[in-house]
């Protein structure tokens, strides 16, 4: 459920006291309500759902899975057998 797309904040302003902003999605910009991500500044990434920023993207957390994968690769070189030799690796179809 709930389409949420990361976009980059370009500018912010207040409309009837509500924090609003222009958010860029790779060359497409939309007006987005930033009222619940008060601390964002231009350049920050926010997760946008129906024109509303749900949260600010944590750029350090975003790297975690890739660090994990890099670590896995180093381990693999030492001990994991190749794809063909492992049991149970037949794809569903």
């Amino acid at each position, binding site marked *: *459920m*709930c389409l949420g797309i*990361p976009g980059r904040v370009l500018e912010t302003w207040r409309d009837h006291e509500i924090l609003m902003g222009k958010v860029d999605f790779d060359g497409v910009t939309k007006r987005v309500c930033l009222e619940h991500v008060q601390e964002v500044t231009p350049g920050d990434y926010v997760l946008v759902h129906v024109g509303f920023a749900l949260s600010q993207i*944590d750029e350090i957390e975003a790297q975690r899975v890739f660090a994990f994968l890099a670590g896995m690769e180093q381990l693999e070189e030492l001990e994991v057998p190749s*794809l063909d030799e492992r049991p*149970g690796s037949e794809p569903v179809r």
Partner: protein
Amino acid sequence: MKFLDEYRDPVAAQKLVRAIESMVTRPWTIMEVCGGQTHTIVKYGIDEMLPAAIELVHGPGCPVCVTSLEMIDRAHAIAAHPGVIFCSFGDMLRVPGSRGDLLQLKSQGSDVRVVYSPLDAVTIAAANPDKEVVFFAIGFETTAPPNAMAISMAKRRGLTNFSALVSHVLVPPAMRAILDAPDNRVQAFLGPGHVCTVVGYAEYGPIVEQYGVPIVITGFEPVDMLEGLLMAITQLEEGRADVENAYGRAVRPEGNLASRALIDEIFEVCERKWRGVGMIPGSGLRLRAAYRGFDAEGRFEVEAIQTLESDVCISGDILRGVRKPQDCPAFGTACTPQMPLGATMVSGEGACAAYYAYGRHFEAAPLKVHHAV
């Protein structure tokens, strides 16, 4: 796009698939709660990349699908009022009620408009003071803050011609309903990432403790989903059941405190009927007494609504993960996105519609695929 492209990387995805393969020792059934995750699975063919031992079943997390027929009929009755501008998210327009869908109503002359955001409906109300503007406020916890913000904004701007037809639903009671069923097959959940950006994941701790099922809060891109699956399978194989967060870039443990406060100010918990599932106590949100003035149900008289659902449709079982779309005799034949019989076919995010859109109705015949490029 930053924070999307890297999570669609084929090398990262393949590495995670291999990690899953090396972890699995026996069959597991895992449910992704969100319709958006179902969409990702079939759009990218993720289920086909997994070992045969892993079965993915699809949850009730499509707010469009589970909106009750009574509520859709009520929306029709209100939208048909002269002088009403009825605003809705695009995917709600094609959902059939007892008397057709909102697009058909539009063709008969009603002013039905697609809005991208609930705040756009407030703008329309401000620009049309001589019209009643009604917004169809559906959604899970994710959509509650923007919908609440629209109502708060309308109040702040003193708009008396804006109201909302509220049909909000909540995820945890639905997960409990699935786990309480005697025929439940779900052994672990991929938790709803965007719901948790709003409300956090403290609510899932008691579910894990009570039922002993792992819940991994998961994002929506292929790499996110494979990582969530790897974490869930690791827990299952190790005999653990914890709440884990695989979507740390968007989800904090406590969620978004400002959003939670606004939801609490505008809405209160109520019982809610889910299409295909039935009444679930404490599974909905409605406007608090202080905001009843913005309640479209109070503003428009609607005659008693009689509804009739198909008796062939198994969408209730599909929403609970007990059966799959192909198990339904009507799937892809009597029931298609053009002529949906039940909840899971009515929205693109429903499991049946997602299976249909990505060609799973062809699966009766084995699909031989050669890629020449």
